């Protein structure tokens, strides 16, 4: 059995309209975030991974299972979609219970797993209420419970934090992290970048149906050569340090931090700069910290895709 989620030369067209084009991915365990503006192809990619749509060309396999084999695929995959429709008249518990019965589980097991899933998303109090009366956040949570209920190895979550309040967001993020720590594949689509930045092991940046970058966020940032790396240095004598750095020709641009306790510089070669900094800072300048200022998802996203539609 393959231990990756593989997309090989995958394209999907809706008639004349491009969904995704020539996507090649090999997704390892951990939290992977799909990032991109609306219409960039995130949901299409997730629907392709779960067989809800078929690729126009290419091959998709999830842990060795073909996506046209739902009987086996959904034993290892749980998908929380953005579709906001539920079978009519069902309570939250009945929704999860019915899903588990559809999976072929006996009544007792379905009941037990259903209760556990509902407790995991903190919806136990509302489990007996009809879903039609749920708030947006509650519907989001019940969808998450459905995806989690059968304890799948692969969790595919389309905008899972939408509609959740800050406390619920924190709880869900903790849930995703614990799933990833247990070796699960957690694939999350989001356009809320600071959250993605906090939780992702790797990101897939998408734009107009194309994958524009993928991998761990720092390695993606390192590959963007046209934008100099920004580095924030906190120190006691920033003006003096700035002058020395300029003299060493290691930085292309330097600005003093407004609190006068640091400086922000841009360099084309971060590794060389770090080596040079050791020599520059010998003369009594106390350096408190040196941190990259633009190797987060937001910066990478802005460099590669632009800042439109980004929710910070």
């Amino acid at each position, binding site marked *: 059995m393959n231990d990756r989620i593989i997309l090989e030369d995958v394209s999907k067209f*809706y008639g004349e309209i491009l969904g995704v084009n020539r996507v090649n991915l090999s997704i390892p365990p951990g939290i992977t975030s799909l990032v991109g503006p609306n219409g960039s192809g995130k*949901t299409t990619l997730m*629907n392709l991974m*779960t*067989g*809800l*749509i*078929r690729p126009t060309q290419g091959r998709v396999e999830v842990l060795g299972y073909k996506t*046209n084999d*739902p*009987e*086996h*695929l*959904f*034993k290892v995959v749980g*998908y929380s*979609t*953005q*579709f*906001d*429709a*539920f*079978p*009519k*008249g069902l309570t939250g518990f009945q929704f999860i219970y*019915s*899903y588990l*019965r*559809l*999976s*072929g589980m*006996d009544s007792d097991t379905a009941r037990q797993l259903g209760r556990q899933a509902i407790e995991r998303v903190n919806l136990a109090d509302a489990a007996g209420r009809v879903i039609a009366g749920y708030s947006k956040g509650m519907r989001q949570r019940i969808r998450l419970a*459905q995806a989690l209920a*059968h304890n799948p190895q692969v969790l595919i979550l389309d905008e899972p934090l939408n509609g959740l309040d800050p406390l619920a967001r924190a709880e869900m993020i903790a849930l995703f992290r614990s799933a990833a720590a247990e070796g699960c594949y957690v694939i999350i689509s989001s356009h809320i970048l600071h959250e993605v930045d906090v939780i992702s092991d790797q990101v897939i940046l998408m734009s107009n149906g194309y994958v524009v970058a993928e991998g761990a966020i720092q390695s993606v940032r390192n590959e963007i050569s046209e934008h100099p790396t920004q580095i924030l240095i906190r120190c006691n004598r920033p003006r003096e340090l700035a002058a020395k750095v300029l003299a060493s020709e290691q930085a292309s641009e330097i600005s003093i931090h407004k609190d006068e306790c640091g400086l922000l510089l841009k360099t084309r070669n971060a590794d060389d700069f770090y080596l040079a900094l050791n020599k520059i800072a010998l003369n009594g300048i106390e350096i408190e910290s040196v941190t990259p200022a633009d190797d987060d998802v937001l910066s990478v996203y802005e460099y590669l895709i632009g800042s439109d539609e980004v929710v910070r």
Partner: protein
Amino acid sequence: MKRIWWEQIKAVMRLEMKKTFFATRGLWIYFVALVPVVIFIAYAIANSTQIHRSENLARRQDRWLTYQDLQAVRNGMSKEQVIALLGKPPVNFHWSQHGGGGRTTVHDELHYSDGVDDIYVSLVDGTVRNIHISDGYDMGRDSVMFAGVFQFFFLRLAVFFGCLGIFMNLFRGEVLDRSLHFYFLAPIRREILVAGKFLAGLVATSVIFVTSELLQNVAFLWHLSPGARNLYLYHNHGLAHAASYLAITVLACVGYGAFFLVAGMLFRNPIIPTLAILIWEGINPFLPAVLKQISVIYYLKALCPVNIPTPPGMPPLFAMLISNPDPVSAPLALVGLLIVALLALYLSSLQVRRMEINYTTE
């Protein structure tokens, strides 16, 4: 079949039956199923009233008449001759009409009954001018009428459109409600999903239309005296006919259900397949023998226990619709219908594998 598949089919059925039986958009199906029941209740009330009237009339006569007595009345007889033949009339309408030139015409209307059939004798100036015998209750004639309603209304319209409403929406309704992904995200073979949905639709339509058919039978027979009812049920194949009608109703649900299930997957607009199937079923008698077999009504007609005679003088085109010129035997009809239904289900299972969730999240 794997045990888990059966469990999954039952799970699909549980969800679907709830939706099918209690869907607001399906309320009209109950109405359609009830229409023939209402027809037979109305018929039974009218018939019952007629029987009571005839019996009352017969009781008020001087003597008990036979059908032959009623037939003995001829035009040209005098009022006295009629009274001598049939006795004093229990109902006698008498009136005079004053014409021009001071001429007066005397009219009489005499009613008699043998307890079942009534005779209306019209006399002008004491001479019989017109005789009308109104045939009362006739089980043979009513059986044919029941068969006619069953074949031409119940099967071709009520069950047909009922199955359309239920089976066509099994997948199409989910797409319209944007809830099909719920099933497509479960670890269940799509063929199993088709089987579960089909069986749920079959149970629902069978319950609705078999109940309707049972009620029609009850309405058809309730106004009869216990003796007449027993005679019909146990000595004139009434019970066998009733059982046949129930079985044919279920088979109609199987056949039309399979047709509409696949049609609901293949077409977005339900009007196109509905018209196509309706026309196809309608022109069945005019099709070549090979094409006739790809139809539901062809087999159902062959299974019907009562043949409907073609009334004399009917245009050949209509006569062909009623008659069954090259019927198949009942076992062959049964096998043929099941094969056609299985073919349609096979097409459904191919189609469901190709289905994608194309509705958006907007």
